């Protein structure tokens, strides 16, 4: 899922300064799962904003909505009948969802209520960790199911490097060396020969280097 963290309330209040009527839009997708932008978070944030604004002597009217997904046009369309009745939309979906709303409603300012994070997993309740950077050319079959792009701090393809010590990466004592994990896993799978199958270099042309990416599936159109 796409993860994120709430923006500081002071920052949100500052963004809302020019407005007196807004829509606060959550999303039932990823941000609900990582507890940062679902229905409950919409309610908490709406209450917080209303309280802060009323205490400061200037009330704000908030329409609370939660869309099925903010990254699909059919759900965004459900806001069309009323979106222009409000001065701005504060969205707590991921950056993709917020941008898609902005594209569809050109006359309404869109404000981000969260800081979008990474593609990750729920390691335990309340704790999420990064697993994939969407490099566009997956090698997990060669690396024991552990991503070198993400789990190696330097995204090396033939680690571990000299900064690896006792399984820990030099960037931090709580950061396991991704390459040590890969080697350990390959050994336990009896697949060490995969190490020599990795490409001598990684081409980043499928990643972000070519600018914003697009997928077109003729079979799906």
């Amino acid at each position, binding site marked *: 899922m796409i993860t994120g963290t709430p923006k500081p309330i002071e920052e949100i209040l500052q963004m809302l300064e020019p407005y007196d009527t807004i829509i606060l839009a959550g999303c039932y997708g990823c941000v609900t799962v990582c507890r940062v932008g679902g229905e409950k978070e919409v309610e908490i944030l709406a209450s917080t904003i209303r309280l*802060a604004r009323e205490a400061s002597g200037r009330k704000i009217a908030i329409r609370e909505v939660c869309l099925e997904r903010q990254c699909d046009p059919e759900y965004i369309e459900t806001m069309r009948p009323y979106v222009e009745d409000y001065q701005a939309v504060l969205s707590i979906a991921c950056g993709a969802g917020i941008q898609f709303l902005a594209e569809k409603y050109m006359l309404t300012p869109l404000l981000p209520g969260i800081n979008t994070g990474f593609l990750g997993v729920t390691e335990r309740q309340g704790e999420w960790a990064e697993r994939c950077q969407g490099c566009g050319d997956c090698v997990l079959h060669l690396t024991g199911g552990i991503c070198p792009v993400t789990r190696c701090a330097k995204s090396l393809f033939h680690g571990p490097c000299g900064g690896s010590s006792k399984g820990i990466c030099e960037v931090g004592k709580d950061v396991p060396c991704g390459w040590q994990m890969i080697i350990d896993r390959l050994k336990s799978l009896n697949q060490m020969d995969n190490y020599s199958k990795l490409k001598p270099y990684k081409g980043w042309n499928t990643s972000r280097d070519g600018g914003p990416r697009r997928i077109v599936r003729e079979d799906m159109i």
Partner: protein
Amino acid sequence: MLKAFENGADGVMVMGCLEGNCHFVNGNFRARARLARVSRILETIGIGAERIRMFNLSAGEGARFAAFVSEFAAEVQQLGPSPINVARQEAAKIPTGEIRV
């Protein structure tokens, strides 16, 4: 919890069962963590973290419950009306009313 303040409470008590005795195992610990978040929000927006507090007691402790309520109500009385109620009273130009817990 925040809704209670929106609805005009000057202070909010959250009652949980005794720690280690929760029917939902760690429900009361989670409630305490959620309450800590709400306290931070209240502090940030100028309402004050001291207006919300968690108390733990068992269902059979009626006298203790009453003591907690009196204690907290007295503290909130000391704090006076919440900034929300002050703003509302000012907006409505009515004199400061009674304290609500």
